[in-house]
């Protein structure tokens, strides 16, 4: 087997990986390689035909495919080497991986590796939805590839499970394929769509006639060959209703595409399902960085891209000074908080991407006071008027200066009225 060498190996050619590569090039680093298992780079946006991409990284609003094309063009122009149809299958050394492509199997050793493998939605089985397993069950990801990728109509009447941002993306995709969406189902007491996306929700409900059904869970899928109906159970009253449909789209409930991270024995953060990283996006393994949706499920693409850029700067530092933080403290959340990322603090110098930590809550909270403690010591408090589950919020980071890098773990709590 041939072992190739490069300075920086970027695994995953989505917005995070591509933005990192461009920034590294800009910082004067050569011999960067991007490995992408799909036939082309661009990542998930290639299949999101609606608008809303690129505001903060490219300072213009694009549709998903146009945004992906813009990155493809920039990468080509920067003459960064891209290995497409190439899947990284495992590790053969601390900074060495194995990959398969139509040209064969090879190993690649690098001075630094960036993991930017993205995330996926949990499908029906992972949510333990009982019932049958007929055709007609999708995630937003699989749906978009049928409708925008293969240009195929795949159903007549749909139910969307979820009422968050990505669920809207599913509704718009179904609308594009002329498949009416009867309902968007959510376990929460309300939809989880915040400004500036409320107009899109209005469009989906008022113009397209999809109804948001709250405090309801999917209790069964019915149908033999093809989905025939979905059984819904009210979490409030226990009432059970069967709704006829032939298509069910499970949206959201992200999980990091973390197989490589785990196969490499990186320390993981249970709450995000991604690898633990500090503000500079160092993982627990020297030379291995992580960025993008792998860190904590889906954010908008521009956020993932900016994280990629942030990682590029950390990688450039590492290539020069070979410094890797050894100790550090974990940063955990307490319920009803869901997760925080980055979730490890090594030094106060490692500020997180764009100077903010991201976090989410598990349930609606209003007038919330967030507190960050190290042991019993209060480091930071911040007020939020309203916190919506499945929406990310930004926590300031100037308190990092007060962290004792050898001290107790950091924890974040919230005092609020549950709405």
């Amino acid at each position, binding site marked *: 087997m041939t072992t190739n060498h490069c300075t920086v190996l970027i695994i995953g050619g989505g917005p995070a990986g591509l933005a990192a590569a461009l920034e590294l090039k800009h910082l004067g680093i050569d011999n960067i390689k991007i490995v992408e298992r799909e036939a082309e780079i661009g990542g998930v946006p290639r299949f999101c035909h609606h608008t809303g991409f690129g505001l903060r990284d490219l300072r213009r609003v694009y549709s998903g495919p146009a945004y992906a094309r813009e990155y493809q063009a920039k990468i080509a122009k920067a003459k960064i080497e891209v290995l497409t*149809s190439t899947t990284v299958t495992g590790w053969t050394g601390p900074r060495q991986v194995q990959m398969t492509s139509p040209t064969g199997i090879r190993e690649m050793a690098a001075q630094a590796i960036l993991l930017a493998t993205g995330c996926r939605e949990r499908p029906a089985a*992972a949510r333990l939805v009982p019932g049958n397993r007929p055709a007609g069950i999708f995630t937003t990801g699989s749906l978009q590839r049928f409708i925008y990728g293969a240009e195929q*109509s795949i159903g007549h009447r749909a139910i969307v499970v979820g009422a968050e941002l990505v669920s809207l993306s599913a509704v718009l995709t179904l609308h594009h394929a002329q498949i009416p969406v009867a309902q968007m189902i959510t376990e929460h007491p309300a939809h989880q769509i915040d400004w500036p996306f409320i107009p899109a929700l209005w469009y989906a409900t008022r113009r397209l006639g999809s109804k948001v059904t709250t405090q309801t869970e999917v209790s069964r899928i019915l149908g033999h060959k093809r989905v025939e109906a979905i059984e819904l159970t009210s979490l409030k009253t226990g009432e059970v209703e069967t709704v006829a449909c032939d298509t069910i789209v499970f949206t959201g409930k992200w999980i990091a595409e973390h197989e490589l991270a785990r196969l490499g024995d990186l320390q993981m953060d249970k709450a995000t399902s991604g690898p633990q990283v500090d503000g500079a996006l160092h993982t627990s393994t020297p030379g291995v960085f992580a960025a993008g949706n792998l860190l904590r499920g889906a954010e908008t693409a521009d956020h993932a891209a900016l994280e990629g850029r942030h990682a590029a700067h950390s990688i450039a530092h590492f290539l020069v000074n070979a410094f890797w933080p050894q100790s550090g403290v974990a940063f955990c959340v307490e319920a009803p908080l869901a997760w925080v990322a980055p979730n490890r603090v090594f030094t106060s110098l490692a500020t997180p991407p764009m100077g903010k930590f991201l976090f989410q809550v598990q349930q609606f909270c209003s007038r919330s006071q967030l507190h960050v403690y190290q042991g019993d010591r209060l480091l930071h408090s911040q007020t939020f008027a309203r916190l919506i589950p499945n929406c990310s919020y930004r926590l300031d980071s100037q308190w990092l200066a007060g962290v004792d890098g050898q001290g107790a773990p950091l924890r974040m709590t919230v005092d609020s009225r549950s709405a």
Partner: protein
Amino acid sequence: MDDQNLYDIAVIGAGVVGAAIARELAKYELRCVLLEAGHDVGAGTSKASTSIWHTGFDATPGTLEARLMRRSYELMGDYIAKAGIPVERTGAILVAWTEEQHQSLPTLLARAHTNGVTDVRLMSAEEIYQREPYLNQGALGGLYVPGEAIFCTFTLPLAYATQAIVNGVTLKLNFPVRQIQRDLDGVYTVQSPESSVRCRYIVNAAGLYGDEIDRLLGYNRFTVTPRRGELIVFDKLARRLVNHILLPVPTSITKGVLISPTVFGNVLLGPTAEDLPDKTDTATTAAGLHMLLDKGKALITQLVDEEVTAIYAGLRPATEHKDYQIFAHPAECYVCVGGIRSTGVSASLGIAEYVVALLAAAQLPLNPKPEFKPVQMPNIGEAAQRPYQSAALIAENPDYGRMICFCERVSVGEVIDAAHSPIPADTLDGLRRRTRVLQGRCQGFNCHAAVATLLARERGQTIQQLLSL
């Protein structure tokens, strides 16, 4: 008349049992037809087993089941090696958690030895924890059954049926037998709604519908009551938590809930056991899944922290009798192979050999063919090399290095092969059983559309057909 439609023998049902019988018959100069109601081989109960290659150590001594499992075990090792059936010889540990269970171990040991499974031995709790460090505390001891193994419940029936076809058996899919008549010359007419075949001998291997076929032939001696078993498949990242098949101490009703690695590198938890009236109800239930998670948590807590990749249910063709319902009627040229409840995958070769012996005794002329062609199935197991790992294969055909299903690491080349194999994959589920596509952790988030597009192209179908729209 030279009757193209007149066969020496028809086997009804292409599950693992019927396919094994057809394969055994293919060794002889016979015109044999294998009739299957469904659109594929092995798509009934056989695809929903726990995929354990049982030794028969815990079978009731003296039963036909015990005898045929034992015989099958002797034959299977050689067969699966030659046919390339994925297998891992993990061994099983039967774990006792209560004093009562612990005290029953010597009886179970004696039974294993009576059944001829002589390598079974008692195992101390200490050794159990050495071998299974993630097992929760509290095990008192156990039985070690080195011969129990995991193999592939998808590949096995396909291998049998493929070898049968390659050696001259006719396979008729989409042939649900609805009527059977026998004329004065002793020729049967076996009818489906759309066509019919004629034959001299009949083997009934219709699984859940074995009782109904038996009644069409005038018998009324057993009723199949489907016994549903629900299962949870955990992510491959859980595989490191389990080294052996972990069996509970069986009760008289069921073998109980077990934890087992799979040949695909996942971990299986199940099955439940629940009698049902409906022979098509392969739905999972909230109650069943919760029960399994509770049991799983009690056995290996870390297991249930891992992601769930799939959930499914299978229906065991249970009858009011404990033993297999195999009967020969030489005058009627009929053999009934019913009630192959919970061990049929393991016992299939033994059953097939026994059934063919019964047919010989019923005067079916058996003249061996000069040649019995072997088949080699594509490997889809983790223990042997897969195409994406083979530099030589990829050099020969780059499509073996072109991944289409990333989670399961299936290449375009394998999908194309499966679409053009002797029993081609005509549905996404059939393709899944042949290649593993779409059965991984993302369940199609990445590759559902790509796989459907490729299969549609290769089979001349539309995507709507593949999605049953």
